[in-house]
């Protein structure tokens, strides 16, 4: 059964059902790989061998009894460490939550348990998902399996490096401004951000409530669709959860014909600021689409110019309030300053010691954006830009079924490259942010090798609640890519070796 670890989850699922392999075997295989390779990639903050194997045993029993609750039953999974789990410490990448064992399971984790998918462990992220590289994790950065000197994207670099390094066959991420899609692009994997509200946020440690969305991190589009089918659905615990089902994504992902598909190329995301290789791969993909019978239209989204600015006002504002609860009263670390301090001073000292520099920066920025006298100019204007961006999208989707752009301006950059320049780091998300501001679904699929022989990504966006259209288009483009390159992009990745 060599090469099993590189198989997509859809195939592993078939093998589980046919009895070719058991969930315990698969789970052990990935646990072994994870334990061996994690010292290289730092993908996992915590690997849960014991509980994963218990869950695998349970999955095998269900499969044998013919009672598998889900297509993916028995397939082990990695979960980003900003989703609460009652059986594993949940840190959100922050020192302030060191040793925090949640009193409840997030809805997504409950759904994984209900589907009997063993949870291998919790993956690394930038602290509270603030960052694009995992360099802001309090527990050290994750490394890109393609080049261990480089970032695996962020904030979900733990999940992307786990999946692209085959430490896990499939993983969960969260995306506030590109935290699923950029890591996918940077590691040659697939990452999807569903429509806002398609997946419950209950138990997702909030970064920015109106932007956050949980989604799949996988090695192909069908896997992403299958996983979205497991985790999506109305949740009465989340007031912003969509009521109506968006359909079975796996069905959409099995339609790969792009003939007649109206593909919009966003003018503002197809020109300046992208590495030449990234831009060249993108243009080649447009040609592939034309050759396959898709109709290419240029769409104009003038307000995208303001998207990054609006995002870096809305996100910090909401985050400053969401992170106020980390105050050393009900949970979390408590830092006692010298002498006989008041609770106010204890809170301030705890937050000083427990939060990293980027978190502090954004909290203070958000506090500023909301403060009296500045609200209208900053937060208020940013919320209005949001309307303009929605209007741009509405216009674009009137003439196109999906919109495409490069996922990120560059391939994976080196550690430290953007660490001292917050603005440069922020601009990395220029192409992914508009989807979060508008709540629409977006997916990144591999788009060939670009600068430094590293993967680049292609982003596909669809109108709100049209996740199915997005998955069909993504599956179609993925097929064109695989046909062009002869194999999956991820199969170009170097084997990870422990010296």
């Amino acid at each position: 059964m060599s090469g099993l670890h590189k198989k997509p989850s859809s195939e592993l699922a078939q093998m589980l059902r046919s009895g070719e392999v058991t969930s315990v075997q698969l789970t052990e295989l990935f646990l072994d790989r994870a334990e061996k390779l994690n010292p290289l990639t730092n993908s996992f903050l915590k690997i849960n061998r014991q509980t994963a194997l218990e869950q695998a045993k349970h999955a095998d029993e269900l499969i044998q009894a013919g009672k598998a609750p889900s297509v993916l039953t028995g397939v082990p999974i990695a979960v980003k460490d900003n989703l609460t789990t009652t059986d594993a410490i949940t840190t959100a990448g922050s020192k302030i939550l060191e040793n925090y064992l949640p009193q409840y399971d997030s809805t997504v984790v409950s759904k994984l348990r209900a589907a009997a998918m063993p949870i291998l462990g919790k993956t690394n992220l930038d602290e509270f998902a603030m960052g694009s590289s995992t360099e802001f994790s309090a527990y050290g950065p994750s490394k890109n399996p393609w080049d261990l000197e480089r970032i695996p994207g962020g904030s979900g670099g733990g999940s992307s490096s786990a999946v692209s390094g085959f430490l896990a066959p499939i993983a969960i991420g969260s995306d506030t401004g590109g935290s699923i899609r950029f890591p996918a692009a940077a590691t040659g994997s697939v990452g999807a951000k569903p429509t806002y509200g398609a997946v419950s946020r209950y138990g997702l440690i909030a970064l920015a409530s109106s932007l956050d969305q949980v989604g799949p991190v996988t090695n192909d589009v069908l896997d992403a669709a299958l996983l979205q089918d497991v985790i999506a659905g109305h949740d009465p615990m989340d007031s912003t959860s969509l009521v109506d089902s968006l359909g079975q994504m796996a069905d959409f992902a099995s339609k790969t014909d792009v003939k007649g598909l109206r593909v919009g190329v966003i003018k503002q995301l197809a020109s300046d600021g992208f590495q030449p290789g990234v831009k060249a791969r993108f243009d080649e993909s447009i040609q592939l689409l034309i050759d396959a019978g898709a109709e290419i239209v240029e769409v104009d989204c003038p307000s995208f110019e303001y998207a990054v600015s609006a995002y870096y006002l809305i996100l910090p504002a909401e985050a400053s309030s969401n992170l106020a609860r980390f105050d050393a009263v009900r949970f979390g670390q408590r830092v006692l300053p010298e002498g006989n301090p008041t609770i106010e001073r204890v809170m301030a000292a705890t937050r000083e010691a427990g939060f990293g520099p980027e978190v502090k920066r954004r909290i203070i920025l958000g506090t500023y954006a909301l403060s009296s006298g500045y609200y209208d100019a900053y937060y208020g204007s940013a919320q209005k830009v949001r309307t303009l961006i929605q209007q741009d999208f509405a216009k674009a989707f009137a003439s196109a079924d999906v919109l495409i752009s490069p996922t990120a301006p560059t391939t994976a950059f080196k550690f430290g490259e953007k660490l001292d320049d917050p603005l440069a780091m922020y601009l990395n998300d220029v192409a992914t942010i508009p989807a979060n501001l508008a709540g629409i679904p977006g997916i990144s699929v591999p788009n060939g090798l670009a600068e430094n022989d590293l993967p680049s990504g292609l982003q596909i966006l669809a109108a709100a609640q049209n996740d199915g259209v997005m998955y069909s288009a993504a599956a179609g483009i993925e097929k064109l890519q695989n046909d062009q390159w002869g194999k999956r992009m991820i199969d170009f990745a170097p084997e990870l070796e422990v010296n």
Partner: protein
Amino acid sequence: MSEITPENVRHLASLARILVTDEEVEKLAKELDVIVESVAMVKGAVSDDTPATSHPIPMSNVYREDVVKPSLSQQQALSNAPDQADGKFKVNAILDEE
């Protein structure tokens, strides 16, 4: 003109309950000033009559039935408490000794 002064930062940090050293204040003021200068462009993008969007997907009237659901036990509630006494969360004094 720099919009974010060290004095601003001190005030904002105190509102946000984050202790900052003088050194950090200087550094944060410089960094935030650059960021604010950049993001301030949103002011010019909109007009008074542009509606604001607070929720990406329009929804309204999402309510819960008024039916009691199980709560945590006291032990569960306090399981992560940094300090506790008598079934309650224990915190340092609220006011300084005078």
